[in-house]
């Protein structure tokens, strides 16, 4: 097998692995973090000043 093809396969595999893990960490982690931060808010501030936002 060509070294270039091998390298591309390696990076593709690594990218897939990181993409899966990154998505999973965001999907499970952000809601849990939001839940934790929301516990420091009351109902009014939860709407006016949301606990967490990705970007502006």
């Amino acid at each position, binding site marked *: 097998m060509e070294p270039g093809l091998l390298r591309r*396969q390696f990076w593709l*595999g690594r990218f*897939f*692995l990181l993409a*899966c*893990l990154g998505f*999973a*960490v965001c*999907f*499970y*982690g*952000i*809601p*849990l973090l*939001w*839940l934790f931060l*929301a516990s420091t808010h009351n109902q009014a501030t*939860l*709407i006016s000043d*949301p*606990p*967490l*936002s*990705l*970007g*502006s």
Partner: protein
Amino acid sequence: MSQPESPDERLRAQSERQKKRRETSAAYLFLAPYLALLCMFGLFPVIYAFGLSFFDTIEGVFWGLTNYTSVLSDFRLPRSTVNVLTFTAIWVALTVVGVTILSLTLDVLPRRLATTLRTIFFLPGAVISSALVVLWLFLLDPSVSPFRPILHLVGWETLQSLVVGLGYATVFAIMSYFATSGGWIVVMGGALASLPTEVIEAARVDGAKPYQIAARIKLPMIWRSIVLMAILSLAAGIQIFVEPQLISLAGAQFAQPDWSLNQLAFSYAFQMGDFGASAALSTMLVLVSVTIALVIIFVTKFYKID
């Protein structure tokens, strides 16, 4: 003609039989609490509901199949059935694909990192499902969600537009996946950990890459756990109740009182007071779930010993 047994052999056979009987008794003793609970909260309610489904519980008279015919002619039944089937298809597919990919991915990470991530993924399962529905109502509302830049990018400015865009079945499937997948990832982690290391080592020595080991060695060896996950998810999916029942918390415009079949059974029993019709619908749901599970078990030869 067989030789008569010597006293020694007879004694040995007798002690073997006694040992086997003791082991069997111990197994039944361990099983007893589960069997008692299964009878009390599993078998008895099913048998009771089956009996109740033949009675007019308002007048207290035997009605034969009238409850079944009245439920089957209810105009809400086809729509609820389609809703439940759509939800179940999306949720089971999400669970089988998502959990399998994540479990195989975690299996190639260093042990400590994998354990930490598995614990994070499991945490939502420790929160009661009704609380998770409320959490997701906030997370999916573009006005307060942490994902609001992404949601705005897609064009969803309000929860109403998101629900219309994704559909109720998908929204409920995301909520259910978040609640249950972590537990299955832990179960799959156990299944992957029990695989013989010499097989994986041999594949690695032969030059197999991690994705080849995952797809061609690990996956075929854990298929029984995946089928089990699919069967149990299917049974749970057909019984969806909490998510459509609680979505009205986001506003009256989201109320879906007859979205699922279990909600329909609930409304028969507790809004119309017709426990017979509710029991008939519940009995049909049990029959459908058991039939689908049996078909999957026989088609996949689930209990066949390799």
